[in-house]
């Protein structure tokens, strides 16, 4: 059980991820801020409480792996990695910009802490399955976590992997779906409804828990108790809000694309500052 003070620390880290994400997408005039804001608590809990990896162990064959399959939300990932000291904080300043180190989709090329380069949807989970299976076969203790977007669950390749993982009893594999209910051209319900979502994973023989993806205590409780069942992969469906933390971005499709500029940027930063 996490103490109230420790939860406050996690919430503060999530707020920092949001500040970085807004600042980075502002500077870069880039998209996808909404999907970084929705997974801020997920990243904070993973990196501060769950993942057995640190800047000192990025090459350790026994480290836990995180695969960010929703590679477009890389601003959030880069932010937490910088906060945790995997690379210098000033790398964030050249995110997306000419000559910078951090591309507009997650890249592991020269970026310590990023395990796999992603950006095309539906790639992360199959790779995570391969990492998990190799870990099992080599009797290594590491776990593999994959963060998926809801929209990318349209991809058939994910369902190939969702079939595969229970067949091979990959209980060292944990999927976290950032279920913010908005995809590229509309709500998930309008575009390709995933419901009954948890039941789908269950029927594919995954052990599933649904949590409030902004409740650090609930996230920690879920992620600290994987595997939920021995012999089964675990799925955490994190119910989240796209654009969480900035009032005018919350639950708005526009903020899949729009970049925070001018007064909108000032207001977003002011709101996030006020949450301290």
């Amino acid at each position, binding site marked *: 059980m996490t103490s109230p003070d420790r939860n406050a620390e996690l919430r503060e880290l999530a707020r920092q991820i949001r500040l970085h994400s807004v600042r980075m997408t502002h500077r870069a005039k880039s998209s996808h801020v909404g999907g970084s804001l929705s997974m801020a608590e997920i990243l904070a809990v993973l990196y501060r409480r769950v993942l057995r990896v640190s800047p000192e162990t990025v090459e350790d064959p026994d480290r836990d792996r995180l695969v960010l399959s929703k590679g477009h939300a890389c601003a959030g990932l880069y932010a937490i990695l910088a906060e945790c000291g995997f690379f210098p904080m000033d790398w964030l300043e050249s995110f997306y910009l000419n000559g910078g180190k951090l591309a507009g989709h997650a890249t592991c090329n020269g970026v310590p802490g990023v395990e796999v380069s992603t950006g095309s949807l539906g790639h992360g989970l*199959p790779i995570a399955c391969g990492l998990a299976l190799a870990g099992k076969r080599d009797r290594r203790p590491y776990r593999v976590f994959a963060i998926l977007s809801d929209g990318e669950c349209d991809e058939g390749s994910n369902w190939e992997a969702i079939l595969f993982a229970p067949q091979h009893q990959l209980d060292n594999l944990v999927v976290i779906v950032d279920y913010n209910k908005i995809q590229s051209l509309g709500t998930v319900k309008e575009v390709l409804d995933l419901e009954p979502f948890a039941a789908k994973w269950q029927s594919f023989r995954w052990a599933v828990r649904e949590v409030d993806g902004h409740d650090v205590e609930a996230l920690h409780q879920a992620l600290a108790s994987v595997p939920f069942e021995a012999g089964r992969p675990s799925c955490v469906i994190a119910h989240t809000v796209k654009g969480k933390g900035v009032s005018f971005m919350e639950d708005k499709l526009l903020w899949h694309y729009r970049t925070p500029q001018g007064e909108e940027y000032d207001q977003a930063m002011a709101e996030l500052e006020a949450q301290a």
Partner: protein
Amino acid sequence: MRSTFIRTLAEAAAADPRVTLVVGDLGFGVVVDFARRFPEQFLNAGVAEQNMTGIAAGMALAGKVVFTYSIANFPVIRCLEQIRNDVCYHKANVVVVAVGGGYSYGSLGMTHHATEDLALMRALPEMTVLAPGDPVETAAATKAVAAGIGPVYLRLGRDKEPIVHQQPISWSIGKALTVREGNDLTLISTGAMLATAVAVAEMLAERGIHARVLSMHTLKPLDVDAVLAAARETGKIVTIEEHSIIGGLGGGVAEVLCEAGLPNVRFHRIGLPLQFIKAVGDQEYLRKLLGLDPTSIMEQLRIFFPGLPWV
């Protein structure tokens, strides 16, 4: 070629626990023994090539040397983006093995004709592209890539390819094999067209025409030195491939020759036309239909090079 491949792979797997074979629910009668002998180094990913390729990339990133194996286009085109992003970008030790290059599975129809694979694989950064010429080359190629040399595409024939190399060969990636010496013209073949190229060279020899035959088992990196030496020394180059006329061996050799700008070099490509083949027939039948049998190639050479002593 496929039985040679699996036999060689088994030897590699016995020597190196990293070597892993991942199949897309195909290979009945071919992979069963491997699966029984090396259960921890074998995986049937099911009929799911995108996942198969992603899994292979993941296992490779965890330290393994992974061979994905399926028929014709399934392990290649169905999962092209996984090969590009997950395998090639990450420089993962994954060998994509397609059994049934060209019309090896001719009678099964268009879906099973692997006729654009070399062009697609050649275009990918980091990818080494191999199409061994006979079972002897297949063994050498399999052994070489099992060491883990980064992303590889390995195009195999099927099970009927004759042994061309009767003597031991010195095979290495990127070095064309001179199968036959000659200075009147050069026939460059890739993959299982090697036996045909040698047959053509024998027919030419009966007429006193001495063709050099190169087995260009490595499409990428292409053996530029061998191509240019052949151009300088024979002045006439013909590429022979069971692949689209675009982007494969002929395309690669054309790129080399055009940029070299050598004077007095004649160059022709023999390959497959840019059309789907709707005729029904086995490999031998389809090759004949499309001018890839020795007799048809002889007729084309006559047209290309009327100055040679044909009678």
